[in-house]
C-alpha cells in the first residue's frame, strides 16, 4: 500500500459508535441469510440494574445484628390471600418456569432436586409436567400457558400452585417457539404434535382475552382444584402498575413480575433486546399498585429477571418483593456455559458465557437439549447438589446484608436501606441518589 501522506501523521481509524462491529456483523448476517436471529436468554444490553444500588448499612441511627449469631429469618408464605394451602418456603428464592422440551428431563429433575434440598419451589414450563420433575420437587408450581401443551386436570390437582403465564420479561407480548430438532418422541407426545416440526406457543390465551375474563378463568381453576392451591399470575415488565392492578383485581394470590433480563428458551433477538423494561424499573411500580390496593404483603410479589446474588435478592426484597425467582442463574449453577466445554462452544461459533443458541439443541453441557448423547453428560444428582449449594450461598449473602441493616427477617428490608449510584437507577428504583435525599420524579421535588 502506498503512503500518500508524505510523512504527515495519518488520521486514526475511527469505529462508528452507531455502526459498531457487532451491528455491522449482524447486518452482514441478515443480508446473507434473510432471517432474523433467534436465540435464548434475556437482554444482554447493559441496563440499570441492582448493581446500581447499594445498602447503607447500620451505624448509630440503625442498630445492626451480629452477622453470624443472631437470627435472620428467611421463610416466606406464598398464596395467603385465597388459597387453602399456601406454599411455605424456607428461603425466598424460587426456581422460575422452564419447560421440559427446552430443557432435558434430567435437567428438570436437577432443578427439582436442588430446590427441594434448599427448601424452595420449582416451576414447570411450556410442555407440561413430567413425572421425574413432580417426583423430585417437594413444591412444584404448574404453569398454565397459552399453548396448554400437556395441560390436564390431574396435573393441576397434584401441583402445589398454579401460575397463569400472561407474559415474561424477555418477550412481553410474544409467544414462544421450540424448533423441530428438540422435538423428541417424548416431547412430541406430551405436546400432541408431530415429531420434528417447529412448535409455536401462542402469545395469548385461547379462551380468555381481558382481565374480566381472567377473573372467571381463575374461578374455574379454583373450582377444579377445590380452592386449595395458590394462583399466581406471571407478567412481563411492560406496564407493571396497571398489570399488577389488573392481576390482583382478577384474583391473583401471587404476582410474578419478570424484567427484560429474564431468559427465554428461544425468541427473536430483536424482541429480547427491544421490548420490555429492566426489572429495576418495574418493582416499585408493582409494589405501588399493591399498596394502592391495600394488598401489599397480602398478595405476594415474586420478582425475577437478572437475579444473580444474595445482594440482588436483598435489594429486590428491600424494594418490596416477597420473594424472587431465578432461571438463567439456576442453569449456570447446573453447568450451563461452563468454560470446561470451551472447545465445543468454539466449534459452535461461540464461547463459554455467550452460548445462547439453546433452541438448536446442541448444548455441550447437556442441559438445553433432547439429544440422548449430550444429555448423558449431565448428572441430575450432581446438578441438584450444585443448585442447592448456590441457593444456600445466595441466602447466606442476603442474610449477611439484612443483619448489617439491622433486620431479623429478610422481609424487614426496606427502601430506606438503599441508595442509588446513578441518576437512572435512582429514577427507576425510586431510591435516593447516594449522598442525597432526592431521586428524579420524587413527589414534591418540583421536577
Amino acid at each position: 500500500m502506498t503512503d500518500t501522506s508524505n510523512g504527515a501523521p495519518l488520521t486514526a481509524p475511527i469505529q462508528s459508535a452507531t455502526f459498531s462491529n457487532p451491528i455491522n456483523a449482524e447486518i452482514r448476517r441478515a443480508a446473507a441469510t434473510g432471517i432474523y436471529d433467534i436465540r435464548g436468554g434475556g437482554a444482554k444490553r447493559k441496563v440499570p440494574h441492582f448493581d446500581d444500588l447499594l445498602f447503607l448499612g447500620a451505624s448509630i441511627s440503625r442498630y445492626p445484628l451480629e452477622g453470624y449469631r443472631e437470627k435472620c429469618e428467611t421463610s416466606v408464605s406464598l398464596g395467603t390471600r385465597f388459597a387453602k394451602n399456601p406454599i411455605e418456603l424456607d428461603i425466598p428464592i424460587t426456581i422460575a418456569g422452564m419447560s421440559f422440551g427446552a430443557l432435558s428431563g434430567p435437567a428438570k429433575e436437577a432443578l427439582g432436586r436442588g430446590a427441594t434440598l434448599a427448601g424452595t419451589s420449582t416451576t414447570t414450563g411450556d410442555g407440561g409436567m413430567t413425572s421425574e420433575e413432580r417426583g423430585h420437587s417437594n413444591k412444584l408450581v404448574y404453569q398454565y400457558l397459552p399453548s396448554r401443551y400437556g395441560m390436564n386436570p390431574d396435573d393441576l390437582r397434584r401441583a402445589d400452585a398454579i401460575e397463569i403465564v400472561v407474559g415474561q420479561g424477555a418477550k412481553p407480548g410474544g409467544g414462544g417457539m421450540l424448533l423441530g430438532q428438540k422435538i423428541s418422541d417424548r416431547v412430541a407426545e406430551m405436546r400432541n404434535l408431530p415429531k420434528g416440526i417447529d412448535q409455536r406457543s401462542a402469545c395469548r390465551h385461547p379462551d380468555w382475552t381481558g382481565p374480566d375474563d381472567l377473573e372467571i378463568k381463575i374461578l374455574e381453576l379454583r373450582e377444579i382444584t377445590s380452592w386449595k392451591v395458590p394462583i399466581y399470575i406471571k407478567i412481563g415488565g411492560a406496564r407493571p402498575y396497571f398489570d399488577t392492578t389488573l392481576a390482583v383485581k382478577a384474583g391473583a394470590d401471587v404476582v410474578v413480575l419478570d424484567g427484560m433480563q429474564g431468559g427465554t428458551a428461544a425468541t427473536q433477538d430483536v424482541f429480547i433486546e427491544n421490548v420490555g423494561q429492566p426489572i429495576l424499573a418495574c418493582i416499585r411500580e408493582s409494589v405501588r399498585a399493591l399498596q394502592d390496593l391495600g394488598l401489599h404483603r397480602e398478595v405476594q410479589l415474586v420478582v425475577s429477571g437478572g437475579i444473580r446474588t444474595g445482594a440482588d435478592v436483598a435489594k429486590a426484597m428491600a424494594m418490596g418483593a416477597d420473594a424472587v425467582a431465578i432461571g438463567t442463574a439456576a442453569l449456570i449453577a447446573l453447568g450451563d456455559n461452563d468454560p470446561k466445554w470451551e472447545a465445543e462452544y468454539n466449534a459452535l461459533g461461540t464461547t463459554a458465557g455467550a452460548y445462547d443458541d439453546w433452541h438448536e439443541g446442541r448444548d455441550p453441557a447437556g442441559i438445553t437439549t433432547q439429544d440422548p448423547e449430550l444429555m448423558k453428560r449431565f448428572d441430575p444428582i450432581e446438578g441438584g447438589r450444585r443448585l442447592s449449594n448456590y441457593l444456600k450461598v445466595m441466602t447466606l449473602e442476603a442474610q449477611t446484608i439484612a443483619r448489617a441493616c439491622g433486620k431479623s427477617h429478610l422481609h424487614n428490608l426496606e427502601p430506606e436501606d438503599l441508595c442509588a449510584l446513578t441518576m437512572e437507577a435512582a429514577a427507576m428504583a425510586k431510591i435516593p441518589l447516594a449522598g442525597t435525599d432526592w431521586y428524579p420524579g420524587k413527589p414534591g421535588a418540583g421536577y
Partner: protein
Amino acid sequence: MQTLDMADIALREMNATLHAQAETTNQTAWEIVNPKGAHAIACGLDAPIEVTVKGSTGYYCAGMNKQATINIKGSAGPGVAENMMSGTVVIDGDASQYAGATGHGGLLVIKGNASSRCGISMKGINIVVHGNIGHMSAFMAQSGNLVVCGDAGDALGDSLYEARLFVRGSVKSLGADCIEKEMRPEHLAILADLLEQAGADAKPEDFKRYGSARELYNFKIDNAY
C-alpha cells in the same frame, strides 16, 4: 335423579358435590336447576355420571371434563368444555366463543351455532356443530375432528396442525396454511361415526374436508410475514 338447585346452594358446594362422586357411584344421574348463567358449572368432573343443566350457563361450563356426560338444556357461555379430556358435552342451544378450546378428548356437540374460535388449539377432542361456526375457528388446532353442518366464518383453521375439519356449508375464508383436502373413504367413515354420535341428520358425502398444507411446520423466512 339427584337435584342440585343453584338457587339454594353456592357454586362451590355444587361442584364439590359432583367432584365427590367416585368411579363406582350409584348416583349417576344429576340435575342442576336454576343455573342462571353462572360460570364454571360442573367443571373438573371425573366420574362416569350424567349431569343435566336445566338452563343456560356462563363461562367454562364442563371445563376439563373427564368421563362425565353433561347436557346443557340451554345455551353455553364462552369456553364451554375447554380442555375436555374425555366424556360428552351436549348443548341444546348455541355456544359462545372458544367452545372446546384446547380439548384433548371426548365429544362436544353443539346443536345450535358456535361463535368465534370454536375448537381453538384443540388437541384431540371431537366437536360436532349442527349449525354454523364463527371466525378463527380451529386456530392452531393440533388434532381431533371439527364437524360443521352449517357454514364456517373467516380464517378457518389458521395455522392448523393435524386436526381434521369437515364443513358442509360455505367457508368464508381459509386461514394461513389451511387448504381443502381430498375426502377419502377413511374420512367419510370418521365423519359418519361422528354425525351419528352427535345425532346430526347430515350425509357425509355433502361435506368438504380441510386440513393443514403443512407449509408452516418448519420455520423459514417465507413464512415470517
